[in-house]
């Protein structure tokens, strides 16, 4: 038995450890799907529809089949009997219209980029070259591009058989909204558009399917190996146990790889037909057309308030663009917003109505934040509008409405129970870091001297729901799966540890954070822990990574699995030490008899003893392994206060962000460096929606932003230095006290930036600038406003 340690190691949880996976990820010397090249691999290239909407009259692949290197050409008709339909796991209403969605189009195409045929060849060049020899006769049908027109009487239909372009209408109501608004002294009505975005993960989609007898191993750049496996089995009717899905290292997803794509189903079918490994990797422009898009909502908002700024009620009417088909969770994404439009505020009445609308565009689905950024934008823009209407400071109008720190837990008007929060603390800290009062003074001074470059200050006091999710709640929303997560801990004979997680990292840093948790809970060195994930043969179950859920749900499963190992080790240690279990204490990886510190044994020694099994207590199996799942009983609710200072050049419309302060409360933190990285990346993506990104379709339904020259993704050079800080109010729904941070920055920052721009331009009579706030749009807003002191001006004073 070893001597007692004099000092335990510093705790891992809370330590800003550099991510151990980064060296291989940033150098690319790793298992990206496209790097995998089993012997005999064939390469697939897709012929895609150049029409937004057309009937397929005839496909002639004869000449392509004769080209050198070409192994096979398949059309939708060739695969019609076996390809099934792509799944939608979220039937949000009983009468939701859910059209068939073949992986490869058979009779009709409904968005530009929909696959029509594929060539399988011995190399990628031969496959792509042969596409030019596949002839398709299309009969053009009317494109349906605009959601409001799509719902008008006599509109052209995306799916003629459905008789309508409306997929569903979903309603939530609480309180007497009509009364609240009818009697309100202040009523604001606004229409905001959440433009369509392209997720743009660094790694494009890629899939490789390797057939082995009746079994298939499918490698895919996916966020959801477990869900994908089940869905592939359902769609193809290949038994689930014959399919192994591997998500090797995956270079980002932002929701875009939370999907079951046609190319994944087809990889399985082609590998089965041809008996060879088949691989497909998309190009960036192919991806822009065919990776599911995000956002795309028209919001009509009505807010009633008292003259002192207190909100009475909020009415939300949404149109949400589904695109041409319903994909995995397409219809449910905007409904996550139903619970978030009330933000951190108290109100008496609320109503939310959302209609999902089909258009001849790429399907939409989850994109970082998924429904919550749209809702947060709506309410946070309205709070600034309310402040302007009443001549109040936007911070003050928020203070008058938010849930105060002594009111938690608080049941909101949209039916959630916020477990914890401290909006006062986060706001006070943000105001101080930002230098709010000095910036307001500078704003007044610039307004006074009519500086062509005006200063605007934008506020966003956001919250969000994450840690998806309590399985019962998901069930009540008709979601097709649960929200638990799985973890397993295996103590190896040498005392080293393997941790298996059902969460599927694609850039978040699970390998580091999970090792930190295991190291602390088991009392072993960080470097002694290996984290395994992303392979259904290794992690046999899991619910994967999305919705800022990994730590709050999967981290808790690990926490619990560690405790199970320690409990069993305690039994064995007690036997070895000839002591009673209840007399043992466990600290720093060592069991000792309480009060007799020099009598003890380490967990590694217990692992060794377990392996040899020479002297185990009766009935104890010789393993030091455990499995655990965790299903939370509530969502978690990160919140924070973000402040943005924007300089707006009124002569050119150029917006420059001068400073940005983000104070986030994500509860307890396992690794502050990872948290800060998530906030930075989230801010970049949220700012990108405010200023840069938009998927643009022309009137014929052609996507015009197919390259990164046209779809502008900002780089570090375009962003200000971020000032980030935290307050720490633990979540009460899990023992770690963590909330989740993957989406917070994206959710918070978009309204902060637009609020800053509008704030700068209020003297010009500007009340809104549509997103993205391009220089030309800002310039037009200034020009079309009436200018300083004009009749539409709200004046420079606050």
């Amino acid at each position, binding site marked *: 038995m070893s001597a007692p340690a004099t000092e335990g190691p510093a705790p891992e949880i809370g330590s800003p450890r550099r991510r151990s996976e980064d060296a291989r990820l940033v150098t690319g010397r790793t298992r990206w799907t496209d790097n995998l090249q089993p012997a005999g691999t064939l390469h697939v290239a897709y012929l895609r529809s150049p029409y937004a909407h057309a009937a397929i009259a005839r496909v002639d692949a004869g000449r392509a089949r004769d080209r050198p290197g070409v192994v096979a050409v398949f059309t939708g008709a060739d695969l019609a009997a076996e390809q099934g339909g792509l799944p939608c796991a979220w039937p949000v209403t009983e009468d939701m219209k859910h059209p068939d969605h073949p992986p490869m189009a058979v009779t009709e195409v409904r968005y530009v980029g929909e696959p029509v045929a594929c060539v399988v060849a011995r190399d990628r060049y031969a496959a792509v070259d042969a596409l030019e020899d596949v002839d398709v006769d299309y009969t053009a049908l009317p494109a349906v591009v605009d959601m409001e027109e799509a719902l008008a009487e006599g509109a052209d239909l995306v799916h003629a058989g459905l008789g309508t372009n409306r997929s569903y209408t979903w309603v939530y109501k609480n309180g007497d909204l009509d009364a609240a608004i009818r009697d309100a002294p202040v009523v604001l009505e606004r229409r905001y558009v959440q433009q369509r975005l392209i997720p743009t993960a660094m790694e494009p989609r890629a899939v490789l399917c390797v057939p082995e007898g009746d079994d298939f191993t499918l490698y895919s750049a996916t966020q959801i190996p477990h869900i994908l496996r089940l869905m592939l089995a359902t769609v193809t009717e290949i038994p689930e146990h014959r399919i192994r899905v591997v998500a090797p290292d995956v270079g980002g997803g932002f929701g875009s790889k939370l999907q079951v794509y046609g190319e994944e189903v087809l990889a399985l079918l082609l590998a089965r037909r041809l008996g060879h490994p088949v691989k497909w990797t998309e*190009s960036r*422009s192919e991806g822009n057309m065919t990776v599911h898009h995000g956002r795309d909502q028209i919001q009509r908002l009505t807010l009633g308030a008292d003259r002192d700024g207190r909100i009475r009620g909020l009415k939300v009417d949404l149109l949400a663009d589904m695109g041409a088909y319903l994909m995995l969770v397409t219809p449910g994404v905007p409904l996550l917003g139903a619970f978030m439009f009330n933000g951190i505020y108290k109100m008496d009445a609320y109503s939310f109505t959302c209609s999902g609308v089909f258009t001849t565009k790429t399907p939409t689905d989850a994109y970082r934040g998924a429904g919550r950024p749209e809702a947060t934008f709506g309410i946070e823009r309205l709070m600034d509008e309310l402040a302007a209407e009443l001549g109040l400071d936007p911070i003050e109008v928020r203070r008058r409405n938010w849930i105060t720190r002594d009111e938690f837990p608080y049941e909101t008007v949209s039916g959630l129970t916020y477990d914890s929060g401290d909006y006062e603390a986060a706001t006070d800290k943000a105001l101080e870091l930002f230098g709010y009062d000095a910036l307001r003074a500078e704003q007044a001074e610039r307004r006074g001297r009519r500086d062509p470059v005006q200063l605007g200050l934008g506020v966003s006091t956001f919250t969000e729901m994450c840690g998806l999710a309590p399985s019962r709640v998901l069930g009540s929303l008709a979601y097709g799966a649960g929200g638990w997560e799985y973890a397993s801990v295996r103590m190896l004979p040498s005392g080293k540890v393997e941790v298996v997680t059902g969460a599927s990292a694609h850039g978040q840093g699970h390998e580091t954070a999970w090792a930190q948790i295991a190291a602390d809970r088991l009392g072993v060195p960080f470097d002694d822990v290996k984290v395994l994930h992303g392979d259904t043969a290794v992690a046999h179950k899991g619910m994967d990574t999305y919705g800022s859920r990994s730590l709050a749900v999967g981290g808790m499963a690990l926490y619990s699995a560690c405790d199970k190992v320690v409990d069993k080790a305690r039994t064995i240690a007690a036997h070895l030490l000839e002591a009673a279990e209840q007399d043992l204490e466990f600290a720093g990886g060592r069991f000792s008899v309480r009060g007799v510190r020099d009598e003890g044994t380490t967990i590694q020694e217990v692992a060794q003893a377990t392996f040899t099994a020479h002297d185990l207590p009766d009935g104890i199996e010789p393993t030091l392994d455990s499995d655990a799942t965790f299903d939370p009983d509530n969502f978690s609710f990160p919140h924070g206060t973000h402040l943005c200072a924007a300089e707006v050049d009124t002569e*050119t419309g150029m917006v420059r962000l001068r400073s940005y302060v983000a104070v986030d409360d994500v509860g307890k933190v396992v690794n502050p460096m990872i948290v800060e990285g998530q906030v930075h990346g989230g801010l970049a993506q949220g700012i990108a929606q405010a200023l*840069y990104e938009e998927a*643009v379709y022309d009137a014929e339904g052609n996507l015009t932003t197919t*390259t990164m*020259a046209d779809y502008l993704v900002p780089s570090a050079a375009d962003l200000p230095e971020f000032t980030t800080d935290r307050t720490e109010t633990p979540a009460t729904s899990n023992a770690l006290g963590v909330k989740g941070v993957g989406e917070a920055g994206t959710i918070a920052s978009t309204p902060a930036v637009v609020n800053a721009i509008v704030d700068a331009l209020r003297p010009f009579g500007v009340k809104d600038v549509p997103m993205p706030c391009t*220089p030309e749009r800002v*310039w037009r807003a200034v020009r079309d406003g009436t200018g300083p002191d004009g009749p539409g001006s709200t004046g420079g004073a606050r």
Partner: protein
Amino acid sequence: MIPAKFEYVRAASAGEAVSALAQAGEDAKILAGGQSLMPLLRLRLAYPDALIDVGRIEALREIRDEGGALLIGAMATHHQVVRDPLVRAHAPLIAAATATVADPAIRHRGTFGGALAHADPAGDLPAVALALDAVLLARSPRGEREIPAADFFVDWMTSALDPDELLTGVRVPKLGPGWGVHYEKFHRTAQAWAIVGVACAVRRERGAVEDARVALTNMGPVPVRATAVERFIEGRTVSSSSLRAAGERAAEGTSPPTDLHGSAEYRAHLATVLTARALTAAAAV
């Protein structure tokens, strides 16, 4: 994306490149730094039969002093141009504009000559060459010829180079003492092309503008010289109002495009604001 098939010839000298080009016929392209051509190939927007790679011809990278002018080799990279002491001393407008081209990775590979031969009106360097009255040197089996920048940019992405001509270098007259320069680039992100750019060189004497050269990026199918601006400001006393009034004339005679990043109307407006700013910076007001 994957380019279509092409023949590839690596030339060891300018002479070898010229004969390879002649041999390959009309559908051959010169490959310089590849920063514009390769994306076109990968998107299958260009289908050349053959690429003649001039990337290893060291002699074409040289930047030398010819007395009254600099000769910048066509294959000098942007990175090399920005750092070159001769360019910084005698053609500072080129150094300033080149520093705004794309990003460091592209500037390490992209070349001065390639950017001009590509003749993209949204590129920064064509307007600079035009403003500085640069002369482009072309070589073919018929010999060498000199093409003034004013005649070089013929139409959208079309230069005066014949299919068998290789751009070997650019002669740039030195700016003497008293000149101030500025390149005003307006773009939405650091790596994006200019929505509008203004290349400007101004010589001041005793408080007045003695000489002004102003050329505009992305205000038409080719870079355009803002002659109305030049005529207005030359001889006038430098003041914020005179420079602003000069700027007001910037859009005269232009035909700017409308695209995702800006309408023609907006570009015409931007040209006036940015020209006034460029003049102000160049005249060091």
